[in-house]
């Protein structure tokens, strides 16, 4: 084995990470079920092949392609979870969650509370989305703020293959309903392969870059640009810390406050529409907890307040850009 192979882990993409996690979970726990549109092998093992091989290995009783019936999919997940299974339902694209919102919001999220803890709903919903692929207004939305605003749900948005695997395994083991949001671009972006059994706890942020001048708080795909900006500005002597939240609910507020306490400057970056977004909640919490430590107003970057446009010419300016993040960092630096 060469020295390089020893130091550089194998590379995998998000699709492989998801597949590895599902394989491990189904192998370890016979109550884990996978279902959704086109997920079984005769239908291609998922539109991105995330579920490739599962039905062949674990049988079509545990891995089922369903009708295009999001209410029925989500409802079956709720019922199976109440009955002691660990369903992993796939809602092909995040916009289609709107069709199943009653089951997710009125039932999955609330049943534990409304039953006084007599029942629980340990389900996972995997769903794909993300702008940048000219998919237009109904196939690209980031809707995590809707879900984060619904007590009872956990909301997970990873940024790299290792986290995809480690967080998905934690969601499947979690006793609460978890929505696991995959990004269309990240699903094909390579990253380090995690070791077997690798798990990432929910509610724990990571710090891919450590710095002392400015904090970038982000999650999902923009994390990659935050890291790139941090690396670029390091050459100029601006020390940027990047906090990757990984989980929106529960949110690792302690990590945010600790970093802001250190740097005194913060820019929040997310893909979703900026107004009324998760960034507004983060900014409010920083205001409540770190006001005396702030050296500049909290910066916020998100998508424009519009549907996702189709044309690539529009779409590239609709969402965040690395240049925009860099400009925001320079602004809070004064």
């Amino acid at each position, binding site marked *: 084995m060469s020295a390089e192979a020893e130091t550089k882990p194998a590379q995998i993409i998000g699709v492989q990470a998801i597949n590895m996690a599902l394989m491990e979970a189904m192998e370890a726990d016979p109550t884990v079920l996978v279902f959704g549109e086109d997920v079984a092998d005769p239908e291609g093992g998922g539109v991105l092949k995330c579920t490739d091989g599962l039905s062949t290995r674990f049988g079509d009783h545990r891995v089922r392609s*369903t*009708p295009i019936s999001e209410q029925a999919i989500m409802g079956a997940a709720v019922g199976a979870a109440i009955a002691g299974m660990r369903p992993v339902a796939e809602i092909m694209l995040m916009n289609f969650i709107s069709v199943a919102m009653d089951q997710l919001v009125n039932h999955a999220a609330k049943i534990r509370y409304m039953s006084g803890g007599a029942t629980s709903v340990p389900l996972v919903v995997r769903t794909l989305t993300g702008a940048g692929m000219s998919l237009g207004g109904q196939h690209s939305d980031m809707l995590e703020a809707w879900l984060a605003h619904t007590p009872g749900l956990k909301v997970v948005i990873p940024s790299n293959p290792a986290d995809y695997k480690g967080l998905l395994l934690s969601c499947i083991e979690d006793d*609460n309903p978890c929505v696991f949001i995959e990004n269309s671009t990240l699903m094909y972006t390579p990253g380090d392969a995690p070791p077997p059994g690798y798990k990432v706890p929910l509610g724990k942020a990571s710090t891919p870059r450590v710095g002392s001048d400015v904090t970038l708080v982000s999650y999902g795909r923009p994390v990659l640009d935050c890291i790139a900006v941090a690396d670029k500005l390091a050459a100029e002597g601006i020390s940027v810390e990047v906090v990757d939240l990984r989980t929106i609910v529960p949110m690792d507020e302690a990590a945010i406050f600790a970093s802001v306490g250190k740097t005194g400057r913060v820019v929040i970056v997310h893909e979703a529409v900026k107004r009324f977004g998760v960034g507004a909640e983060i900014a409010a919490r920083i205001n409540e907890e770190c006001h005396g430590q702030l050296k500049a107003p909290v910066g916020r970057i998100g998508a424009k307040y519009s549907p996702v446009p189709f044309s690539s010419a529009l779409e590239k300016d609709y969402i965040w850009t690395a240049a925009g993040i860099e400009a925001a960092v320079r602004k809070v630096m004064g």
Partner: protein
Amino acid sequence: MSTQQNFPAEPGTAELRDVYSRVMLIKMTDERIRRVIRSGRIATPHYSPRGQEVIAPSVCAQLNPDDYVVTIYRGLQDHLAKGVPLKSLWAEYAGRATGSCKGKGGPMHITHPAAGVVVTTGIVGSGIPIANGLAWASQLKGDGRITVTNFGDGASNIGAFHEGLNLASLWKLPVVFVCSNNTYSEHTTYEKVTAVKRISDRGASYSMPAVTVDGNDPIAMWKAAHEAITRARSGGGPTLIEAMTFRFEGHTNGDDSHYIPADVMAAAKEKDPVPRFRKLLLDGGHATEAELDAIEAKIKDDLDEAVDYALNSPWPDAAELNRDIYDEEIEA
């Protein structure tokens, strides 16, 4: 594990008396709830099952304790027929810590897993897809349980009904879909909002056996339920039962049913299923007046005790606001 109990295809004396006891429990509990609400001692929405009491007992008397029941906001009849204890039910109506949901759900969300009542939803039609998931779990585990999901005629017009019945039929799930057709979707007549003559006509769309039955006739209702339960338990898949009935009280408390013509209401009440059932028992020699009176006396005592228990139970502690949102307590 649930095992098939041998219930006869037609109810005999023991079965009819069992069903009648549950019917009377529902009727008397409903009447007491309305009385206590009017007195101001409990503040809650209440969806009276008065007039519809026969359906749920005819089904539930043929279920095992661990079979699942899913129901809706008008669900008192299902809760009681399946065996939710009166005290925990009343305490939940009263919003007390001793309620079946610790006072956090209320009558629209009564949950009592030990009795098999695992979901009560306040959303029309939403129990149907959930029932499929419960039944799928039973199918996978081979635990022999079946799931009964209850809803009204209005629910057959919502998308969840279509998605749910299609999937149940495709996957041959052990579910019985019980539609209590009381001919009113809230204030609107069945004909005005439903394109088919009978809801059972919709079964054909899903290749699902479906039947319309007089839900106020305990013998007809027993037989229809028996066939559906037997089919579900033996792996034959789901059945849709449309049980015809009528609602004597308003959609909810405070609704005076002004939209129901007086002659229609009078004719329905003329055929009140509860006195009709009592007459059937007496005429058929299944019970004596004294025996039926004793059933009522026992229920009255139980209700007195349950109401007293509920109204004297503690209110939930404010700390409950932080509990049961997730598995771990949070600072809500």
